[in-house]
């Protein structure tokens, strides 16, 4: 199970362990944590929810895309859902490759794709309210019915 949605805190080492390979010289991880301030506004906590079965499929698809683009790459991703407090770990992406440049690039690719195609949503809770994050006016059109690779956002 290299792709998981978890209701429990993520054990980072166990995600890393899934990509250890005798042929790998480099492992990169990306750890997404809950940040206190976004655009100057103070977050109290977040709620993540997922369309769980589809989310696992889409994480696995991202892993497959990476293993096709970066031969010998090995990928594991766990995303947490439920309530997360400041500094809690929301997502861990581990990528191993024989050479380090690939490990950085492939890992970066994974987080960008997660933000495009994996059905997970977060609701921010502030002192004075709460809201689902994202483009709720849905003003970005996806003519093909799905996000394209070019639709990368920071």
């Amino acid at each position, binding site marked *: 199970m290299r792709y998981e949605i978890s209701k429990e805190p993520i054990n980072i080492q166990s995600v890393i362990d899934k990509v250890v390979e005798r042929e790998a010289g480099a492992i990169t991880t990306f750890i997404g944590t809950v940040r206190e301030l976004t655009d100057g506004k103070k977050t109290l906590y977040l709620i993540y929810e997922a369309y769980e079965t589809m989310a696992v499929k889409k994480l696995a698809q991202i892993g497959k895309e990476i293993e096709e683009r970066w031969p010998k790459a090995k990928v594991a991703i766990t995303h947490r859902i439920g309530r997360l407090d400041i500094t809690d770990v929301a997502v861990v992406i581990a990528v191993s490759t024989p050479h380090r440049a690939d490990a950085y690039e492939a890992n970066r690719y994974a987080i960008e794709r997660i933000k495009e195609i994996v059905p997970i949503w977060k609701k921010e809770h502030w002192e004075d309210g709460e809201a*689902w994050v994202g483009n709720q006016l849905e003003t970005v059109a996806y003519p093909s019915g799905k996000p394209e690779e070019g639709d990368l956002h920071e």
Partner: protein
Amino acid sequence: MNKILFFAHLRDAADREELQIKAVGKTVAELKTELMKNYDLPQLETVMTAINEEFVPDDEIIHDGDVIAFIPSVSGG
């Protein structure tokens, strides 16, 4: 019959997580129009849609038993 799934702010707006309706033979676009007419939903035109957990374009035809999920802008990571 078809199961329709709502998530995030769409679920809040629809005030329900799912719906059973007969959508067989319709396109996704036609289903969206119908749902917006019958439920207090925000604009669905540009919301992504998944059938049986795969993204589909708006002209996709719905078959019996298909599970249709509306996927608002995702915000994982």
